[in-house]
């Protein structure tokens, strides 16, 4: 349980970090390290150089951009969990972040680190997919953006280039009478999810679904949206039977992952149930809010 030797560098800027990364294919960036350090302890990861981006000030922020909230990649999950702007503008994140690991891992773990790590069971990639987040990264001194739906290529695999450093995530802010829901099943609260669902809805003054986003995590190698269910539910009352039919149909063609804890059949079945719960929670949440104006 001891990491192999490595050289440690602590660059002051993102460009400097990217230069080092570009010049050494065995180098790895370290953000919160809550996945990388245990991987190194078990020698499943053996970077020969560790580029610590924890002290790069330009990577830690939560910024109101009107139609979006932008979060710096090095922002600690703990800071995001306690941020009033985030709670007001991105209530789905506020609801889901307490599900990430434990308080002690959220104290170090970062928003960008979890997204770049792309664990299939991680909450932040699921939230990025559900809310159509836009990710920004730096590579070769150039800033690039990529949609979350184009970013997650599979388990622990992303579209980030070898010399790329994720710099931030922009989440769209929904206006109007919105509500959010999140549900997850795991062996113990805060352990890795066997399945997770996130939902955000906007209701019209009559309580009908005006807009809905439903995301599923930990079921396939990357989080995904139930797009077919979303289009069926818009304009409808979100009653239990209709929601269940829609999410079941949308999950019919998915090939879920298999592991000793959860079979593909179980994952498909529980994902439908969790999606229905998340939508019911989101609907109830929205109904408590005053009508849109």
């Amino acid at each position: 349980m001891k990491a192999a030797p490595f050289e440690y560098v602590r660059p002051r800027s993102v460009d400097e970090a990217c230069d080092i990364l570009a010049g050494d294919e065995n180098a790895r960036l370290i953000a919160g390290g809550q996945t990388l350090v245990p991987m190194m302890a078990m020698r499943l990861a053996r970077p020969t150089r560790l580029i610590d981006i924890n002290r790069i000030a330009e990577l830690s922020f939560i910024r109101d951009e009107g139609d979006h909230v932008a979060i710096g990649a090095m922002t600690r999950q703990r800071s995001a969990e306690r941020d009033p702007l985030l709670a007001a503008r991105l209530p789905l994140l506020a609801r889901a972040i307490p599900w990430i690991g434990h308080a002690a891992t959220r104290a170090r773990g970062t928003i960008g680190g979890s997204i770049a790590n792309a664990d299939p069971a991680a909450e932040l990639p699921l939230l990025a997919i559900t809310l159509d987040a836009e990710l920004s990264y730096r590579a070769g001194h150039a800033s690039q953006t990529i949609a979350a739906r184009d970013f997650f290529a599979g388990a622990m695999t992303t579209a980030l280039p070898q010399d790329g450093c994720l710099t931030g995530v922009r989440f769209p802010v929904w206006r109007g009478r919105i509500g959010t829901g999140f549900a997850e099943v795991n062996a113990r609260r805060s352990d890795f999810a066997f399945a997770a669902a996130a939902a955000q809805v906007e209701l019209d003054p009559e309580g009908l679904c005006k807009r809905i986003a439903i995301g599923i995590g930990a079921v396939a190698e990357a989080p995904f949206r139930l797009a077919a269910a979303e289009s069926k539910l818009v304009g409808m009352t979100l009653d239990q039977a209709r929601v269940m039919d829609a999410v079941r149909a949308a999950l019919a063609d998915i090939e879920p992952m298999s592991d000793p804890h959860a079979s593909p059949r179980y994952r498909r079945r529980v994902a439908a149930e969790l999606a229905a719960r998340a939508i019911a929670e989101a609907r109830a949440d929205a109904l408590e809010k005053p009508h849109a104006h």
Partner: protein
Amino acid sequence: MHWRSRMRIELIVNGTTHALDIEPRTTLLDCLRDNLGLKGAHAGCEHGVCGACTVLLDGVPVRSCLMFAVQAEGNQITTIEGITPGQGELSPVQDAFCETHGMQCGYCTPAMILTAHALLNANPNPTREDIVEAISGNICRCTGYAQIVEAIALAAERLSGANRAKDAS
């Protein structure tokens, strides 16, 4: 490949600055135990699952096995050795753990107590749920959770009582 095998760093532990010459791969946990002799930080799973190695980094509980010592330069690190008010004395939280017997084998205890200190600093009147949530990342394999929760509730009650008495005087 050229190895810069060791690094000189300064760590601030329990208010004292220590100059160290260590390998970058040394975790904060191993550094505290082996270089500084602070054996109260316990090495349990060494991959971030058990919570026995919890220390406070700038007052916030973190797993010391999940960061390298070189990363902690400039941070205020608090271990169980640093929370007693004086030699031979116990903190109110430690007292409460003794009185309610909030331990059996003691392996998880330093981490539980540090986590409780951080909780009570941030939230002087925690509910039972707040307490359970705060220690949810710390595994007690004797499963003595009931007394641990009781200890933290007792400490909270005493500390808030002490504050009230001070305010009244």
